[in-house]
């Protein structure tokens, strides 16, 4: 029963939502089911938060390696929970929106969380550089083609690309680097992306049918044939 009920729910809801695409009176059902999911996810958040506290308190108790970070995590978690629940500093009081300008919760978000997130995001630039350095080595024929294409697109997206090939007459404008970059992006890149997208769409259809028909049960845990 533990597995039959979820399988039945998956089959019932999955089939219903497939038909809802083609039956106008059922067209909002998909959105409604998404709302159900959101409600469940909110309750599940308590599990996540509880787990976070349990793990870090356990780390502190056992003085595991890097336990100092757990103190920072727990203080941060507790402080945000405190100022958020009690709406400390909120100009509109306890009844106002927790994210109202001036509230401590919003101030912490604006001046602590946001800069920290931006810092992490900024690392991406350096990672792109190191990954590109490895990927664009002319190790073989395919890698060489990739390198040339990348070089053309890189130049085509900068003023230097225009500057280098501005002398080419309009009748041969295709050979201007920015135009070649556009051609590579709109022809090869777009075709490749669309091919991948078609494959993905068909993969989603097959995967969904496996889930709806109960052929794929791994996500429920337990024996496949259970």
């Amino acid at each position, binding site marked *: 029963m533990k597995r039959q009920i979820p399988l039945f729910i998956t089959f019932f809801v999955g089939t219903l939502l497939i038909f809802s695409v083609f*039956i106008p009176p059922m067209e909002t059902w998909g959105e409604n089911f998404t709302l159900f999911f959101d409600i469940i*996810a909110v309750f599940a958040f308590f599990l996540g938060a509880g787990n976070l506290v349990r793990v870090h308190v356990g780390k502190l108790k056992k003085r595991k390696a890097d336990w100092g970070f757990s103190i920072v995590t727990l203080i941060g978690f507790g402080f945000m929970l405190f100022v958020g629940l009690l709406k400390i500093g909120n100009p509109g009081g306890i009844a106002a929106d927790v994210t109202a300008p001036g509230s401590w919760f919003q101030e912490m978000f604006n001046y602590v969380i946001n800069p920290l997130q931006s810092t992490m995001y900024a690392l*991406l630039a350096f990672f792109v550089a190191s990954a590109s350095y490895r990927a664009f080595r002319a190790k073989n024929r395919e890698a060489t083609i990739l390198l040339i294409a990348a070089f053309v697109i890189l130049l085509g997206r900068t003023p230097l690309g225009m500057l280098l090939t501005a002398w080419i007459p309009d009748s041969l404008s295709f050979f201007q680097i920015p135009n070649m970059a556009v051609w590579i992006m709109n022809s090869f890149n777009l075709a490749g992306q669309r091919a991948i997208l078609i494959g993905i769409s068909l993969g989603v259809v097959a995967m969904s049918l496996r889930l709806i028909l109960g052929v794929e049960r791994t996500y429920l845990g337990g024996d496949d044939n259970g």
Partner: protein
Amino acid sequence: MTPTRLHIFRVISISTICVLLLASLALSQDEATPTTNLSTEIDTVIIEVAAPTSLIATDHKYDNGERINLQWVPSIDDLPGISTVVGYRIYRQDDGGAAEAIADLPAKANHYRDENTELGHTYIYSVAALTDGAEFVSNPTESISPEREWIDFSKRYLFLIALIVGGAVIYFIEIARRGKKLFVRKIAGLEAVDDAVGRATEMGRPILFIPGIQDMDDVQTLAGLTILGRISKTIADYDTEIFMPVSRSLVMTAGREIIKSSYQTAGRPDKYSDDMVTYITDEQFGYVAAVDGIMVREKPATIFLLGAFFAESLILAETGNYIGAIQIAGTARPAQLPFFIAACDFTLIGEELFAASAYLSGEPKQLGSLKGQDVGKAIAMVILVIGALATTIGTAWNIASMNSLVDILKTIFSTS
């Protein structure tokens, strides 16, 4: 002063005061009058414009009776550049009630869809051209009631395609159930799974499984978790350590169930611990910072990145590369695939992510679904070739039949 003189003086004083009062009153009226007159002039200068014409209201096809479409010819004074029409206002009468304004539209607008109608109600619409301070209302429409349709025939081709692809998947699952052997091409990334787990076992280091940053309502997360189900069995068999940091609570509970049952199946339930799957945070880059920290501290030998990834994909994959872990990644987001290809040892590209669980299971009925998927791909390829040829020939030689064929294909495969 004699009484007569005193009387004369009084009369003169009173007269002077009266004259001064009258003069000041007249002066104050003179000052006020021009403003009043000017204001009246501004208020009363109304530039007349023609009202919109040919207003038609039609029921929106294939809906639940919630929409009515309006179309009209804009005011002839709504000219480009020098228009005195500033916009249009839609009025609606509900069941013979008073006309209510339901929407304001910019100049040049010529259509509107009322998406707040109710079944069984009757509506009359009119459209007013707006100028600065005045409205010029069109003739009202005939009364109209929205209608409900039970089947959306505009999606008939989508239904047909879904039927063919879905039918092919079910057909091949059935064929496989009957015992027919089906060939499925090798996927390098999945062939390497056992080696990757074995490597971690030999090195005595943990395996890190990252299921992306989306929740259980994303099919990529589900695909990642189904692969986890297969991998965790091998991990349990090898008695290797696995760690799975997640950014969604529901993924945490699902991940725990999957790993727990794998350890039970392997006969090692005592080796399982809830700490193998830990919730970090819902915040994208907070999660990335934590996972990067785990990578650098724990130095896992193998990292699986399977699920929905966004900007964090390269940060995670490059950190994994930096610590020398063998990495198997997979996502269905085309924009992130190049990052994984550049930074990981094996990448499951799009559909391979969804095929992975079936592939790893080796079960005939699961593999059957992959064959059904291939039928869909074959159809797509044939249509693409026909479409490309028809467009090329039709454009190059202006052949009407080819252009018609392209139009038919566009009608069938267009989703808009």
